[in-house]
């Protein structure tokens, strides 16, 4: 009898302890859920405002017309949209080949020690503030040629792309099974044929995804363009001259005191967001069907 009541008492205690434990569990679950909601809420708010504020100013003129002189209503960002595409092409010309080549070296050729250091260096370079890239390119390409230019802007963005693409290429190539390389050797192929015909073919989707993600990343960069591409209120017909870019134009309009330009900035942001999003979605679509093969 005595022992039964003791058991009963113990059972009650256990139950009480368990209920505080399960209460704590519920509380933490709620807190973590709330944290997630808070993290996601800026995106919701941003999308709502981008569409609400941007769509009202987004019209055919916006993507086909030049900016109007300050004070006049209307006009568009056609030069900035084309300018951004030009800058991205220039950047890709530099960043894509060098990034992929370096990635191949890291994954296929390098000695262990050297590779560890270069990977570390690339990760560190990825952390260099983008405005610092702008300053460096200004020092190396703008001062000697005495002019801001599309070339300088493209180079700044291209340099940012190199370590990004290098690391993703490296990571994708390492995923290619060792057996594929051995199969190549067994056929008597030389190293570069193995890399070209087997490894790169196998990993091409992963590499392409990495390239697209890097392009998406630099397409929104503003800071490195401030002192390289500079911006331009009109069309630029010469790559050795300053060129307009979408993020630069958004920035200039956003900090201007004119209500009308703020609307234009929102419309520009909507276009830029659309550009970045579509590149990312294409990248995800490609990589969804397996990173390699």
């Amino acid at each position, binding site marked *: 009898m005595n022992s039964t009541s003791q058991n009963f008492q113990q059972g009650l205690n256990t139950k009480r302890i368990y209920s505080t*434990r*399960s209460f704590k*569990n519920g509380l*933490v679950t709620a*807190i*973590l*859920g709330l*944290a*997630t909601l808070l*993290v*996601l809420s*800026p*995106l919701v*708010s*941003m999308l709502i*405002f*981008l569409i609400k504020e941007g769509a009202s100013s987004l019209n055919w003129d916006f993507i086909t017309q030049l900016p109007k002189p300050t004070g006049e209503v209307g006009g568009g960002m056609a030069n900035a949209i084309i300018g951004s595409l030009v800058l991205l092409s220039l950047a890709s010309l530099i960043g894509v080949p*060098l990034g992929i*080549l*370096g*990635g*191949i*070296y890291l994954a296929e*050729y390098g000695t262990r020690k050297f590779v560890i250091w*270069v990977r570390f*260096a*690339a990760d*560190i*370079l990825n*952390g*260099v*503030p983008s*405005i*610092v890239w702008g*300053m*460096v390119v*200004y*020092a190396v390409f703008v001062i000697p040629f005495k002019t801001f230019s599309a070339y300088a802007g493209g180079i700044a963005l291209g340099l940012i792309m*190199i370590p990004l693409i*290098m690391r993703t290429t490296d990571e994708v190539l390492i995923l290619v099974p060792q057996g594929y390389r051995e199969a190549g050797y067994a056929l008597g192929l*030389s190293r*570069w044929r193995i890399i070209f015909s087997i490894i790169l073919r196998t990993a091409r989707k992963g590499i392409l995804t990495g390239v697209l993600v890097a392009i998406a*990343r630099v397409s*929104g*960069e*503003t*800071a490195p363009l*401030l*002192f390289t591409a500079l911006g331009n209120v009109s069309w630029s017909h010469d790559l050795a001259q300053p060129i307009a870019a979408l*993020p630069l134009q*958004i*920035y200039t309009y*956003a900090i201007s005191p004119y209500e009308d330009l703020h609307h234009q*900035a929102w419309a520009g*942001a909507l276009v*830029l*967001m659309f550009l*970045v*999003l579509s590149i990312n979605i294409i990248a*995800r679509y490609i990589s969804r069907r397996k990173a390699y093969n």
Partner: protein
Amino acid sequence: MQVVNHQFKKNELLLKSSVLPDISFKSLSALGALVIIVLIALVGFELYEKSKISIHQFGVGFTHTTTWDPAADVYGALPFIYGTLVSSILALIFAVPLGIGSALFISEIAPLRYRQMLISTIELLASVPSVIYGLWGIFVLIPWMRDHVYPGLQDALGFLPFFKGPIYGVSMLSGGIVVAVMILPIITSFSREILRSVPDTQREAAYALGATRWEVIRIAVLSYAKRGLYGAGILGLGRALGETMAITMVIGNSPVISSSLFAPGYTLASVIANEFTEATTDMHLSSLFELGLVLLVITLIVNAIAQLMLRQLTIGEVEKA
């Protein structure tokens, strides 16, 4: 014999023809890898070279004097270093608990079928350009905070020096908040990667002992992933320090050191962005380059620490496996 010899020569020729492209391709790809080393040297060298005039003129005093006066050609970096550090630390205070919390929710609690959707949304947030965060910051978030959050904060905590003074909207606190919003998805993504590397057997062992889900997270997951999560936080710090556009748009751009978080501030990256193309004297430009050098050194140290922490984790795992 003749035939064999002929065959042998043919093989040798084939071999040679395949060795040449092999070596040239190897050197070509090595060039790609070397570019990284060259770039690091170039960045450091150029910033140092261009800031020489300023380094020579102001010496070490540059980093701890507070006058920044282009008209008198006198330059001191302390307000900007202060602004950069304070806004980044504020950003971390907001972003680290939220980032790790949401990563825990996504990887430990959220039902599997929603998990991928949540991950994609976070990745989407990470890809939003800085200038769009800035635009949203000045026209949406900061006005809202100024009207609805800051006054209440001042009423409740106004006795602290941090929350004294007039509220303009643009301020150190606003800068910290906008940067926090920007680094949140980065911290969440990295933390989630780290949590994913925690072996399931750890969790199963804790469940087998009768732990609740929170206890599993606390005992099995957090203790295992601690170092990596610190690394994710420091990586976020690295991003926050170098952030330029968004913070320039909301921090107020005024080189004062104020104890109040409602007062405007200025960061290294912002002053470079604002004054670089308008620098009139060599000394002004050189001082801006020196600010860039200071910024580079701070971010390099922070990033190196973050990489080492994350790396140690992965190397540790490899050794255990």
